[in-house]
């Protein structure tokens, strides 16, 4: 549980993608002026509004999320002049944001539409009681089947995808790789060998940025597809408290060991303890560092800070010890939801708004403000014709079947202290084995708090 907001606790709140920078520079998908999408089936389907209606949209409180929300609001208002969407940019990032959403829902005070994660975080909202079912909306048939499961309970379907899916892996500087004659590693040993050559060339081999604590989790969370490849039933056994599926045991222990190794072998940047994600990305883009275990979504930051170097950066999966298991780990996009407290005209307007987001005009806005980082999860949305190299690399792994879904879409369990534990392991305060054992305890506590069977 909680991958995306934990892993992206700074600003990537909604499923990581939707919240990133409204990078208006280098935008590739042109938005056709104010072209209203009146012919769109998804927009005209509902009963019509009698009066002018104002609804509110809850977004994250960082500038990028608010700018993005505004772009949706403006675009929709052009298509549907009777409805005005007001932005409530008040949701804090990370765990505080989760609580904020839960508090608003449980006290009946939620905005008419809100953007939030799919997967386990969505499940924690008690959707059957708090959310309006959207299963009968006409656009549902266009939604990707995998995504559907991440916003559904046994009783209903509740969310419309917003943004693209994205990968977690190693962002690397292709120019540095070319200059040193390196090839993309598929085993952990090759990764270390590459890293040593990079170090010998006077370039930082592996970036870590504990100034933003969530970034410490990549070696573990970003390699989950490798675990699934080694043992396809791992997630199920892990959820059921099966003694074989623990982080203190292989294959899951690998992620902790790798976190420790890059530190012990001196492969990290010297300021790893304080460096922030954005500054780390700058170093990667400028070729001062070569490899950065990261989420693909952050590429939009590079688009803003180093627009000329965006296509110098590619992504490959975090390599497993056994190269046959190496896969790219993929996250589903976040979604737009409507709470049960929204009724009447506001409900009609909210449904129209949600439908519009995945209409052709809505997708154009998404392409423009969100900077795609992987495939969309609804067939009505298409990627722009030219995409950056991180997106094309991601697509390649997905098409070759060399990708797997992240743990938060398979299990509700995630210990809240993973990032802290991994920082200890990655700074030499504790060993991989100690960290993994501690994390298993953390997981147990969370499972017990969820009241899952088999954990007491």
């Amino acid at each position: 549980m909680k991958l995306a907001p934990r892993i992206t606790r700074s600003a990537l709140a909604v499923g990581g993608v939707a919240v990133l920078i409204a990078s208006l520079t280098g935008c590739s998908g042109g938005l056709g002026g104010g072209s209203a999408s009146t012919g769109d089936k998804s927009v005209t389907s509902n009963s019509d509004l009698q009066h002018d209606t104002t609804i509110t949209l809850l977004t994250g409180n960082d500038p990028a999320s608010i700018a993005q929300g505004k772009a949706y609001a403006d675009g929709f208002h052009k298509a549907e002049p009777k409805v005005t969407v007001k932005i409530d940019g008040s949701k804090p990032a990370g765990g505080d944001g989760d609580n904020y959403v839960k508090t608003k829902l449980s006290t009946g005070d939620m905005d008419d539409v809100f953007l939030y994660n799919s997967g386990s975080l969505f499940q924690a909202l008690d959707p059957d009681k708090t959310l309006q079912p959207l299963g009968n909306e006409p656009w549902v048939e266009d939604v990707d089947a995998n995504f559907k499961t991440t916003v559904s309970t046994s009783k209903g379907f509740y969310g419309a995808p917003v943004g693209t899916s994205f990968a977690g892996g190693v962002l690397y500087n292709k120019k540095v790789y070319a200059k040193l004659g390196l090839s993309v590693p598929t085993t952990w040993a090759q990764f270390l060998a590459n890293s040593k050559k990079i170090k010998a060339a006077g370039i930082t081999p592996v970036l870590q940025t504990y100034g933003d604590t969530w970034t410490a989790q990549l070696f573990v969370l970003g390699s989950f597809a490798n675990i699934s490849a080694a043992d396809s039933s791992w997630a199920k056994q892990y959820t059921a408290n099966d003694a074989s599926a623990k982080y203190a045991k292989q294959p899951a222990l690998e992620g902790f060991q790798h976190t420790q190794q890059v530190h012990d072998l001196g492969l990290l940047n010297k300021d790893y303890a304080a460096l922030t994600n954005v500054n780390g990305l700058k170093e990667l883009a400028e070729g001062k560092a070569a490899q950065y275990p990261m989420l693909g979504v952050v590429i939009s930051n590079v688009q803003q800070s180093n627009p000329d170097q965006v296509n110098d950066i590619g992504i490959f999966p975090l390599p497993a010890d056994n190269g046959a298991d190496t896969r790219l780990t993929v996250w589903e996009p976040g979604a737009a939801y409507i709470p049960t407290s929204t009724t009447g005209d506001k409900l009609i307007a909210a449904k129209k708004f949600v439908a519009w987001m995945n209409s052709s005009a809505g997708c154009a806005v998404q392409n423009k403000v969100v900077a795609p980082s992987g495939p969309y999860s609804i067939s009505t949305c298409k990627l722009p014709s030219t995409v950056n190299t991180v997106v094309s690399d991601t697509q390649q792994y997905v098409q070759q079947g060399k990708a797997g879904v992240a743990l938060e879409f398979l299990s509700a369990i995630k210990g809240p202290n993973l990032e802290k534990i991994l920082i200890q392991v990655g700074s030499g305060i504790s060993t991989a084995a100690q960290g993994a054992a501690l994390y298993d305890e953390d997981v147990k506590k969370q499972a017990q708090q969820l009241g899952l069977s088999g954990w007491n």
Partner: protein
Amino acid sequence: MFGLIAIAASAVIFLVPFLFVVLQAAKTPGEASSLAFSWPTEWRFLPNLVDVLQANDGIILRAFLNSSVLTVVSVVLTTLLAAMAGYVLERRPSRWGTVINFFVLAGLIVPPAVVPTIWVLQGVGLFKTMLGMILIETTFGLSFNILLFRAFMRTIPRELDEAALIDGAGPIRLFLRVVLPLLRPVVVTVVVVQAVAVFNDFANPLYFFPGDENATVQLTLYQFQGQNLSYYNLLFMDILLITIPPLVMYVFFNRQIVAGLTSGAVKG
């Protein structure tokens, strides 16, 4: 000589961080992100100020208005109620004293429970209203200020009360005309401390006073944070802006504090 050293040391310890904020607020985005303590090569103070004021439809102006109303009203209420309670508590010892003491301490120790408090606010119809928020801040400030008032009530001689009573003053007159004026240094202290606490409060308005039109100043800091460094200069400009009202208030009250202090506080 000693005084000069004190001035120099205090300047380094207390003013350099402030200067850092001012310099950062005047820089270009790129320069601000380097975090160096340096003179801006290009002085962008005004453009940055305009950017911050215009950000997000001028949310900061709304926030200033909301925070000001909230601060002024709740501080007046807290000061009055805490003074009254502290006064009776000190002057009229009873066997309830220990129990009351315990509850006052409890108010300082126990963090407020968010969701049940929202239920109460919804129950009395004050959720998401300025009045509700004012009462919340007033309540949460009571313990701290009762403790302060009670401590200093001791320094006011009881003979004064008695003299006033002999002159035929009622309890309200005694309190407002005799006791409260003598407490001026404490009142000023309470006003300043409480005003700063409310003005700088982040968590309570977030939960008890939600909504964009209800924004308070601390929430605006997030408009310039997030992951994007290009807002760094604006972030510091915002910090600077929202520090100014407490600063002005303090400069104003500082004279009062000094006046209260040098008058010797209590004259017989």
